[in-house]
């Protein structure tokens, strides 16, 4: 089959978006279920093509497909074209995006049933998937930026999907603006690269960076600018604040944002431009530091949240920190490997949280408890995902996390310490969720047993929701196969490293044992506090009150950004002064000139009284003055 077929991966969901928003929503809104079917069909077809792409890339020379470009814009000596860059990195990402998206769309059929915005939802979901695919496929920075912003748009639309809720509308706006702040750097980075090298082409930039033509401060600043964009999308400190609020959207949206789209974009971007980062030692150390710090920083907040989705959200930020750390210590393979594994278990955690919410009507874990008896499938799959997240072997999360830990150890002991402390916290917070949600007795308001059965009592979610969870639980266990240190089940050892052309990491049993022990300790501590209750959570909170306040108030960063900087300093401070200045000084001057003219004209007008005696008198005086002047001067 021709390689150009890869375009279809992008165009299929785009087609679905166009048909839903131009045909189904305006004219066939009664049959809104067609929107869901169409979305699933197109994304399913895109997944099939993604699998085809993976095999084609594997067999292609240099693991890269050759696809012609389309000319887009020519002005003077500036030529901009649109094309696809399909190599091993692209192929892996395509599988993640289409695979997770497909599961999420199927699950959404159940979750969004009866919502008045059903068609709108699937239109946005199609566009979201398409934008992410475009971002992954783009062969030049401008095209990448275009889809990058479209991803931002879709997150805005989907987080604010239930726009009648003020919190949802605010969260959508926050996501867009915070990520756009990062995009500022991205855009400037793109311009700086173009100014220096006259190209947007990613492959060409790679070559220039490797050859050293592109280097020095230009490269450092450009790389840092681009990394700013990645920090925004991948929710790295200090631009992470939008992600926890982003759970205001429908839960399947959170699953997609946190797993396969949006947040994966930043990690992907750095991986895509890795040769640029690699050749700037200052830029890459910033990447490592930000990643390591964010991993720990976000985990501390995950420890104290009461909202199940918020815990999982902080967990995402923390895990993204791992991926960024992996890039910072020089291994795109480890980052993508973790991204790949994380996509499945994190999507599963969100779908599980959504399933719990479907039954209990809340996300507050204080009103849950004991759900394992009512929702066995949700419990089982959630537990698998949690074990994978905590890094318990042989689940997928263990393998990628271990690789990152080993790399950090080799690079810098501080980074390793940050990463290891995060392992403990991760295990603790996710098992805190397990014990609070599924363990103990039910503490909520929904009747445990329904009088007439049906959907009133606590119950397992419908099959349309459970099956995607089961389907995601499988990769949550086995997706590590793609880069196992040894050959297993027919997969060669370090397959992904080989595929992406990176030297394989040695497996260090010592380091691995330490991290497993630390994770087990975390689980045990969570059991001690929230399972067996040997230690009282309340007492713990009281003894560590300042720490508790600091973390549960999110280090006061929201207050700093929103209250202090945006509201006080800008909106009601500097901008208010400018507003006053505009009305009173700038426009005041205009009206002042007008007033002076009018008043002056009024004064002058009084001279013209229309009385001839007056005029005559003035004429005589004038005449006398002229005569006098002549006499004095001419005399």
């Amino acid at each position: 089959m021709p390689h150009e077929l890869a375009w279809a991966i992008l165009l299929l969901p785009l087609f679905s978006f166009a048909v839903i928003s131009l045909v189904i929503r305006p004219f066939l809104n009664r049959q809104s279920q067609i929107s869901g079917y169409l979305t699933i069909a197109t994304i399913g077809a895109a997944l099939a093509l993604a699998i085809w792409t993976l095999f084609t890339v594997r067999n292609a020379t240099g693991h890269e497909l050759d696809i012609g470009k389309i000319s887009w814009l020519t002005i003077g000596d500036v030529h901009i074209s649109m094309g696809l860059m399909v190599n091993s990195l692209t192929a892996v990402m395509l599988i993640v995006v289409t695979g997770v998206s497909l599961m999420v769309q199927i699950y959404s059929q159940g979750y969004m049933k009866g919502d008045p915005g059903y068609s709108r939802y699937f239109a946005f979901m199609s566009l979201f998937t398409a934008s992410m695919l475009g971002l992954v496929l783009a062969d030049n920075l401008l095209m990448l930026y275009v889809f990058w912003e479209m991803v931002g748009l879709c997150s805005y639309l989907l987080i604010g999907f239930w726009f009648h809720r003020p919190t949802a509308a605010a969260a959508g706006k926050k996501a867009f603006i915070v990520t756009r702040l990062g995009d500022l750097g991205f855009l400037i980075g793109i311009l700086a690269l173009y100014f220096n090298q006259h190209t947007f082409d990613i492959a060409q930039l790679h070559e220039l960076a490797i050859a050293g033509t592109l280097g020095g401060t230009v490269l450092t600043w450009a790389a840092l600018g681009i990394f700013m964009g990645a920090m925004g999308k991948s929710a790295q400190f200090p631009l992470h604040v939008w992600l926890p609020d982003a759970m205001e959207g429908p839960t399947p949206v959170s699953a997609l944002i946190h797993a396969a789209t949006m947040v994966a974009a930043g990690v992907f971007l750095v991986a895509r431009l890795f040769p640029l980062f690699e050749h700037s030692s200052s830029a890459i150390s910033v990447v490592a530091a930000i990643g390591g710090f964010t991993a720990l920083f976000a985990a501390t907040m995950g420890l104290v949240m009461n909202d199940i989705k918020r815990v999982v959200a902080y967990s995402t930020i923390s895990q993204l920190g791992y991926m960024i750390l992996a890039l910072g210590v020089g291994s795109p393979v480890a980052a993508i490997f973790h991204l790949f594994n994380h996509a499945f278990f994190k999507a599963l955690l969100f779908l599980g949280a959504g399933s719990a919410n479907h039954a209990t009507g809340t996300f507050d874990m204080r009103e849950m408890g004991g759900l394992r008896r009512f929702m066995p499938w949700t419990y089982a799959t959630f537990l698998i995902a949690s074990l994978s997240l905590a890094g318990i072997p042989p689940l997928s999360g263990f393998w990628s996390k271990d690789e990152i830990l080993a790399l950090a150890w080799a690079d810098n002991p501080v980074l390793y310490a940050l990463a290891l402390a995060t392992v403990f916290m991760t295990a603790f917070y996710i098992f805190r969720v397990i014990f609070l949600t599924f363990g103990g007795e039910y503490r909520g308001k929904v009747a445990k047993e329904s009088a007439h059965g049906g959907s009133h009592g606590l119950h397992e979610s419908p099959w349309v929701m459970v099956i995607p969870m089961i389907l995601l639980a499988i990769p949550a266990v086995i997706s590590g196969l793609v880069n196992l240190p040894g050959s297993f089940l027919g997969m060669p050892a370090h397959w992904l490293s080989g595929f992406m052309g990176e030297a394989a990491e040695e497996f260090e049993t010592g380091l691995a044992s330490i991290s497993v022990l630390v994770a087990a300790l975390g689980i045990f501590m969570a059991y001690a506090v929230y399972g067996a209750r040997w230690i009282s959570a309340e007492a713990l909170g009281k003894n560590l009150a300042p720490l508790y306040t600091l973390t549960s108030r999110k280090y006061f960063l929201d207050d700093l950004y929103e209250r202090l900087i945006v509201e006080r300093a800008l909106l009601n401070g500097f901008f208010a002064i400018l507003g006053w200045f505009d009305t009173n000084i700038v426009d005041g001057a205009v009206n002042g000139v007008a007033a002076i003219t009018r008043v002056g004209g009024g004064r002058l007008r009084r001279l013209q009284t229309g009385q001839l005696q007056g005029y005559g008198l003035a004429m005589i005086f004038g005449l006398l003055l002229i005569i006098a002047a002549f006499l004095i001067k001419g005399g």
Partner: protein
Amino acid sequence: MDFPYLTSIVFLPLVGAIVIALLPNPGGKTVKWIALLFTLASLVLAIALFFLFDRSQGGFQFVERRIWIDALNVHYYLGVDGLSLPMVILTTFLGSLAVLVSWKIELRTKEYFAWLLLLETGVLGVFSSLDLLLFFLFWEVELVPMYMLIAIWGTPPPLGRREYSAIKFVIYTLVGSALMLVGILALYFSAGTFDMVELGKADLKPVLIPLPAIFFLLFSAYAIKLPVFPLHTWLPDAHTDAPTAVSVMLAGVLLKMGGYAIIRICVTILPQVARDYAPLLAALAIVSVLYGAAVTLRQTDLKRLIAYSSVSHMGYVLLGIAALSQVSLTGATLQMFSHGIITGLLFALVGLVYDKSHSRLIPQLGGLARQMPIITVAFSVAGLASLGLPTTSGFASEFLVFLGSYTSNIFDGIRIYTVLGIIGIVITAGYILWMLQRVFYGPPNPRYEGVADADAVEIVTMSSLMAAIIIIGVYPALLTNIIDKGILPIMTRLGT
């Protein structure tokens, strides 16, 4: 002899105005249909020019030239090149839509539509004149209809100050015109001609007034129109009190007269001065962008908000002009076209919201998405285009301005100005999204229960604008392939 395309395009609206004025007691519907017919005819011809324009050779095309005042060497001289053709298309497009936007006008319809059509002829004349005196004449023609339209059909007291705003607009423009006239005469005495094509090639020797002085005499008139900080305060007042269709025309095409004239006259005729003063122009541009955006955030009246956002967005036009590179000037011209359709749509929509809810004050609105889903979609599209989202025309044009100015070698600091300009797009995102949130999102307001959504005529208007925004955004080459033909001679003149 060839078909006089340009004369027809420019004067068809005027003929329509005369027909309307001469009809004894026509009904409101008749007047509207006549107005629509003539503006559409003009639009169809403009679109024909788009297809007939010879992209391989550039230069002025469809030229018509007759001696007008022999003694002064004044000609009736029309023609379009890559720079003016998009402006002509934009004007005829918005001119037709302005008639549709006015479909519900019932007060003194005959006069209203006559003035509206005369306004269109004035603006079209500005964009197609190649003789400075003719240009000046058309520039002044637009004033009278604007005064009448704002003062008679504008927002009545106590809510508005329509007479104050109308007179402020006229006096402000007239001050600029007086300066421009001095500049035009100075050019005439230097070169002995009003011929803009001739002047665009001449190597001018200063007579009486030094060249930079001529440049800034002309520039101040156009800076008022654009508008550039600190000459912008007439704009929010004029917009607030103008009827919807007039706001559409004002923001959509009248402001572009300023940007167009800076490129066509200041930069083309006096390129060296433009180069010498590029840092000053860039500084003015960035102040307009950032100051305009900051003040926009503070506005609570929807119309004032969009008006101030225009100050900010037109700052990007000036930035593109200041950078004087082929990409930046092409971007500036595309930004004028793009801002015309985006802000035209925004004002049309603000008008709809106001007609239906009887309020324009943001604190009184809220939750309208439930009552007006179609208007909400269109408003969101226009807003997202305004904040420069890719796949809308707003991104294409602003990106070209940034690319052109960042890579320009006009002076070293231009890159810093570009970065400051890019910061403006974050503030833009702030005020646009905050506005959408406060007006359309949140729980539905019971006060607006049962308020109607857009009707068929309104849907036609906004769909055509949305389509234009997205088509240009996805494939900007449609216009840039023409625009850069108009920019090329300036580049040749600058020797770059």
